[in-house]
């Protein structure tokens, strides 16, 4: 039973995707619906959250909750087992990363390599605010409400030059 499934789905995901790239890959064609029984609703909530944060190593850019690839199915089963075994989210993620690498995490860990990624919005907003502040400060100092004598002279000259 298992292997028959694996073959048919494999076709959908692997080879076909290379030849059949429209806007969407064949792999995305049908929804994954499975009926796991959880011992508590809290586990089910965590299952949904985690299965959406783990990237399928085989299929193109899908999380394991949405992917039909056999490996995504296996990972869902492992996820259920580990949740039922009382593992924490961190332990489960560590288990997955140990086997499939940092690649499987859709939420990259914050470390030296990803610090820039995570702090970028804050840095950019900070830089923007700083630049705007500089802009206004400069303006306050450079342009009092009346023109300086030289500026007034320049303006007068400009007006004269451009007059018909």
């Amino acid at each position: 039973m298992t292997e028959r499934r694996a073959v048919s789905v494999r076709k959908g995901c692997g080879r076909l995707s290379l030849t059949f790239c429209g806007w969407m890959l064949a792999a995305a064609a049908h929804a994954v619906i499975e009926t796991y029984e959880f011992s508590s609703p809290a586990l089910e909530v965590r299952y949904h959250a985690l299965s959406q944060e783990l990237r399928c190593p085989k299929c193109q850019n899908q999380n394991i909750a949405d992917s039909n690839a056999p490996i995504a199915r296996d990972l869902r089963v492992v996820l259920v087992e580990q949740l039922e075994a009382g593992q924490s989210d961190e332990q489960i993620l560590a288990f997955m990363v140990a086997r499939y690498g940092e690649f499987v995490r859709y939420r990259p860990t914050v470390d030296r390599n990803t610090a820039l990624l995570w702090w970028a919005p804050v840095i950019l907003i900070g830089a923007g605010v700083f630049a705007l502040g500089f802009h206004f400060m400069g303006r306050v100092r450079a342009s009092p409400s009346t023109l300086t004598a030289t500026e007034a002279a320049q303006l007068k000259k400009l007006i004269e030059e451009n007059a018909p």
Partner: protein
Amino acid sequence: MQVRRFIPLLGFGLLSVLLFRGLSLDPTALPAARLGQPFPEFAKPELQSGEAIGVADLSQRPALVNVWATWCYSCRVEHPYLLELASAGVPIYGLNYKDDAVKARAWLTQLGDPYALNIVDVEGSLGLDLGVYGAPETYVIDRDGKIVHRHVGILDSRVFHADFGAWFSSVVEGTVPLAQRGSVAK
């Protein structure tokens, strides 16, 4: 002319270099997370003998671990090359991945058996520990039993010569002749 007006151009220049580099990278290639680590512990039956085997049964010299299954079409394509490698003296262990043991034995009887041992992994748990995400995949383990390389997809003479030479130099340099070398390679 102000220098800061060139900042966007500079940024775009960097971006272009990145994108150009990106053209020659494969975004789907996934390096094995287990590289440099010992081959994971396991207790599984052997396909032909049915005896329980473990990591200790793997040899103390560089060897291949080939992940295969009868449902895997590409495995059939690479099978003749595995036979060649085996006859050239490369130890190959099979990892019969999520397969039917009866079908698997029939396959080996029909097509020939290149494997020194075949680990039966019906539920795919050893595959999962290795980080297997499809078949075929071929791992290299060194004399200390560490995983040192992984190839995803069909193994042929071109791939073997390009990536496996560090561990099987005698085969690659042709000191051991390969029967019908390259017959499978394109």
